[in-house]
Every structure is written in C-alpha cells, then in structure tokens.
C-alpha cells in the first residue's frame, strides 16, 4: 500500500470533543492523516469542519478542558505526541514542528519590534541545538537573512519596525521567517494567505514553496481554497464535519473526485472558464452536539442508502485505473506514490 518507512507524522483515528454548557460537541470523529518526509500535504474543508482543531491537537495547544481527546494517536517520528510529558513539548515546537496561522497580526506581539521577536526565537532555536552562548550580532544577521529569504525588501529596516507598521503581506512574511528559522521538519500552515490580496498571495505561496522545497521541509497546508491546494501540494485530504472523507494525490483528486461531497465542493467553485455558478450543496454542516449517525454527510447526500444512516463508512482503498489516467507517469505503470481512498459506501464493491 504505502512505502514501508515510518511517516514523519501520522494521525490515527483521532477523536476530539469539547464540553460546553449544552453538552458535548463531538468535533473530530476519527481523523486519519499521514505526512511523509519532504511531502507537501493539503487539508481542505469548509469553516467549522475541524481543520484547525486537528493541527492544534498536533501542536498540543488545544485548551483542555473544554477539549478532550477521547481516542487516537498522533505519532511524530513514531513517538506519540499525546503521550509526551509537558516538558518535552517546548523542544518539539522549537526544533521540530512549527506553525503559521491565518492572521499574522494576532500571532505577532504588537509591543516588540520584529527584530526582538525574531531574535528571541532564533536564540531559543540555537540554544536548543546545543549552542551555549549566542552573540547578539549573530542573531541580528541571522534574522536579517531569514527575512531576506522570504523576499522581504530592506530587512534591516523591517527588523526595527513594529508589526502595525507593516502591511499584511509583510507580516505574513515575518511569520514565515519565524516558522522556518532553523531546520524544522514539519511546517503547519493554517490558512496562511486567506487574508491577503491575490497578487500578494501568489508571491507568498511561491516563496513558501521555494523555501520548503530547498530545505526538504514537510508541509501541512490547511485551507478552504481548493486552488491553493492544487498548485502547492502532492496530496490532499478532504475533511467534512470532523472526518477525513477522501484522500488522493492532488492531481488525481481534482481529475477524479469520488466522494459526493468532494464532487459537490468542486462544482461550487466559480471557474475562470465561465460556466456559471452551480446551485451549491443543499443543507449545512451538522450540529456537533448531536451529529448524524453513520456517515455525517448523509442528510445532505443525493446518493444516500440505508446503510449510510447506520454505520460510518471506512476509508476504502480504490484501485487506480492506470490506463484511464491522463498522467503519463501513471498510465505507463510508473510511480504512484499513494492510493486514492474514499469514505463512502458507494465504493464498497469497487474496493473489494
């Protein structure tokens, strides 16, 4: 099925619930996700489907309570993050996994200059690598070169500025520099360009892609923009109401979406070719207090069958029709890195 080596990050059957006054929100309902060394993975879903909860669980920043992880494992290099002692977490976040969040203004401290904030992080990272004394000049040069790598004009001036003095695009570049300081192995980017203008988004994404490629960093890109995922990732996970419902190589998924929700989602995206706008998907995402039994998509699904209301479908592994593929590498029997999986009973017979 997949190559035998240990994945960099593997999430297995993660269930997360939140306690609120009215009861318990059953948000994550069995998330399975895998990122290999150097792989670029996308996680796509609409607002409120649990994308951010997933990465917050990985970073161990979920507020507990109200959150409660009732089941599941998050293996980083084979070691369960959920079982790590509190003291081990900071070194994980400093040296191994880093994150970029959607709004750069809230992730930067408004009362310190960029230089001070970036310097702190560099100092920690260097100390973490075993360096005893770090020279101030060294930190400054390091910070400036990091900023330069993200395509920031005039890094020396930026180091002396406060976050409010920078534009949204510049702030996001600062966050990218922070996240990519020393060689982290995994970068989690939560909607890194959602607030930015398209021309700036394009610049930042290309820069991010270059940097990640150059350093061999793995990336988990979380977004609701299907276009961003298509252009930046190797593999996509589609999430709906706390479940991974489909995953495949990016090109394959966009050419050949299988799950009714994925198909509906792709149809609702307005196209540059101008076919008009589809009707959208009827209904809305379920209430997590009392989510539908079985497949959580069944109340909105046109193809629902009796079984969908009873049991949650597993992720069926699809045999790729190599001959039908338009990708020459696949149709000639060449490299297929991973398979196409879909959590839908429509594909039960095909999987068996």
């Amino acid at each position, binding site marked *: 099925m997949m190559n035998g080596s240990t994945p960099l990050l593997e999430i297995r059957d993660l269930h997360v619930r939140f306690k609120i006054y009215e009861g318990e929100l059953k948000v994550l309902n069995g998330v399975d996700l895998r990122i290999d060394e150097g792989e670029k993975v996308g996680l796509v879903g609409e607002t409120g489907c649990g994308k951010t909860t997933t990465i917050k669980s990985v970073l161990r920043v979920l507020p507990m309570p109200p959150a409660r992880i009732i089941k599941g494992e998050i293996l980083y290099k084979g070691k369960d993050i959920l079982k790590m002692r509190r003291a081990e977490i900071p070194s994980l976040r400093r040296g191994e996994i880093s994150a970029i969040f959607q709004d750069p203004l809230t992730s930067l401290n408004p009362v310190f200059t960029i230089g001070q904030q970036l310097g702190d992080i560099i100092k920690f990272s260097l100390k973490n690598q075993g360096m005893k004394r770090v020279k101030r000049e060294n930190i400054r040069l390091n910070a400036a070169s990091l900023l330069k790598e993200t395509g920031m004009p005039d890094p020396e001036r930026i180091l002396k500025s406060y976050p409010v003095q920078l534009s949204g695009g510049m702030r996001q570049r600062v966050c990218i520099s922070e996240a990519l300081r020393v060689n982290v192995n995994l970068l989690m980017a939560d909607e890194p360009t959602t607030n930015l203008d398209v021309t700036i988004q394009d610049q930042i994404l290309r820069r991010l892609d270059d940097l990640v490629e150059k350093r061999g960093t793995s990336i988990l890109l979380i977004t609701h923009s299907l276009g961003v995922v*298509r252009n930046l990732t190797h593999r996509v996970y589609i999430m709906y109401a706390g479940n991974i419902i489909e995953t495949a190589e990016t090109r394959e998924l966009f050419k050949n979406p299988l799950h009714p929700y994925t198909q509906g989602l792709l149809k609702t995206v*307005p196209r540059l070719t101008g076919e008009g706008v589809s009707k959208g998907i009827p209904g809305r995402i379920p209430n997590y207090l009392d989510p539908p039994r079985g497949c959580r998509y069944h109340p909105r699904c046109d193809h629902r069958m009796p079984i969908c209301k009873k049991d949650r479908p597993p992720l069926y592994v699809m045999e790729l029709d190599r001959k039908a593929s338009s990708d020459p590498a696949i149709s000639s029997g060449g490299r297929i890195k991973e398979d196409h999986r879909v959590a839908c009973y429509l594909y039960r017979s095909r999987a068996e």
Partner: protein
Amino acid sequence: MKGPILTVENLKKYFFTKQGTVKAVDRVSFSVIQGETFGLVGESGSGKTTIAHTIVGIYAPSGGAALFKGKNIGVDSSRRSIDLKKDIRIVFQDPGSSLNPRWSIKQILDLPLRVHSANAGPERLERVRELLSMVELPPEEYLYKYPPSMGGGEKQMVAIARALATNPSFVALDEPTSALDVSVQAKIINLLMGLQEKLHLTYLFITHDLSLMRNMATRVAIMYLGKICEVAPTVAFFQRPFHPYTRMLLSSIQVISDQEEELKPKKIISRGEIPSPVNVPPGCSFHLRCPERMDICRRVDPVMVEHETGHFVRCHLYPDRSGRQPTDA
C-alpha cells in the same frame, strides 16, 4: 440597448488624514447600464468600496459628478430625497456586523418598511414574510430568530432581503460572499442572479475574486490605487486583457483545472507591494510593479482610451482606436 441608469464622471473622494491626503477614488468615470451587473474588482485599498459608499450616499464625493436616472446624486444621504434612498440600496460584506444582533429578523426587515411606507403593522408583516420567502428562508422559521443563531449564509440572505425591502432598482453588492464558504457562496450568487431577473435589478458588484466575477458580471472594471485601469465586457476582459495589472492579477489566481490554467496570461509574475494610498507614485501609479514600464510611465499618468469598441484601457502601451497616442492634458 438600454441606456445607462448610473453615470459617474471624474468622481473623486479624498480623505484628509494626519499622514496626508488619501485619494481613495481619483477621477473615476464609468456608467452602469439598466439591468446589467457591473463588476468592480481590485485589491484591498483600491477604492472599490469607497465608490459604492459614495453612490449609496454614505459620504458625499469630493469632486466630479454622479447622475442616477438623470438626477444628480453627488450628495450624502442626509441631502437625498426619500425616493432616491429607496431606489439605491446596498448589501455589505460582513452580515455579522451589518445586522443588529439584538433585533429579531422581523424587526430588522420591518425597519425599512416603517421608514419608507405608510402601511400599517399587519400589512408590513405580510411584506416581511414575502421578503423572507423571496430569499428562500421559510418565514415561520425565521421571523423570530436573532442573527447570532444563524449561519453566515442565512444572515447574508436577510441582509439581501433588507436591501430589497423598498423595491430598489439599483443595488450595490459590496463583497457579498467574501466572508462565506464556497458552497454557501454558490447559493447566494444563484439567489442574487434569480432576483435580478425577477425584479429587473441593476447590480454594482464588488469583489476581489476574479473567478466569481467571470461568472457574475456583464462588464468588469478593474481598479488600482483609486483609479480604473481597464473596463471591458466580461468575455473580452478575461480573454484579451490589455493592462499589465489586469494580466498580473489574472495570472495570480489559484485555479482548479487545466482548462482554466490555459486561460491565465503567461509570462507575467506578480511582484512588489501595493504602495500606500497616502503616497501614490507619480506618473502611472502602477509603474513600480509593472514589467513593461517605459520611461514615460514614470512621468505621465496615462488617460483612459477606447482601444477596442467598448474596451477601455488606461495605459501608455495602448493607443486609442484611431491609433493616436493620447497625451495627458
């Protein structure tokens, strides 16, 4: 062909700040034809919302003229006639902040009716029900709901119903779906297009999403730093964009199929930051980021010319149809 319902000529809106004058809208001219969807695209700070607000009367323009059905509307709402206010309405971007969270949907929709009609309570309630069914929200279920208990899409539908309460002929839609998910966006856009046909509405549609614009607008104008760079019918705009900024914007879109990829202009890469509107570069305001800049761009601001029929562009690269290179007066 129908005549223009709205004509804007050399419209200016300046804001005076401590840092200097912000020319949010600077000598903008366009006209909107009865029954069409006129699209305004541009990045943040380009002045598209300011144009909408000026037309609706949130503020008076600093200069220039705006004619609506032949009448001057270059004043703010306090000096507009009540009939005019009924006729031009607006839907804002974020329904979370444009609907009062402590009012029920019935109260929200009743307010414009109370202000603009002489009807008694029961008749107004009938109209509120009618409005709710018009935007496909079942009245029994929604009349006594409050905005915080509703999803973003439903809130936006209420905002649309509120705009339509006074039977307007012109509605400004200021990024009506930017805060929503794509599946909800599709619903709202379909609703808007259905309503336009049924009620013969004219839309001024503002968005930064070019793919959405392609499917919604009949004509598109693109703005950069308070000025319009290019105006064209939608198909021409997307098939043969002239202005380098239009091409840069189109090439920056993240698309989801190979067919779309082919439609994007090649060989133009996005670079540079959008300059601060307080400190607009001299000459053509785009010249700092323009890959095809010439010497003249740094000195002279180009004027709008009709390069092809109905396709206007403001760039030194393009002469007008007679082949004459216009010089700035």
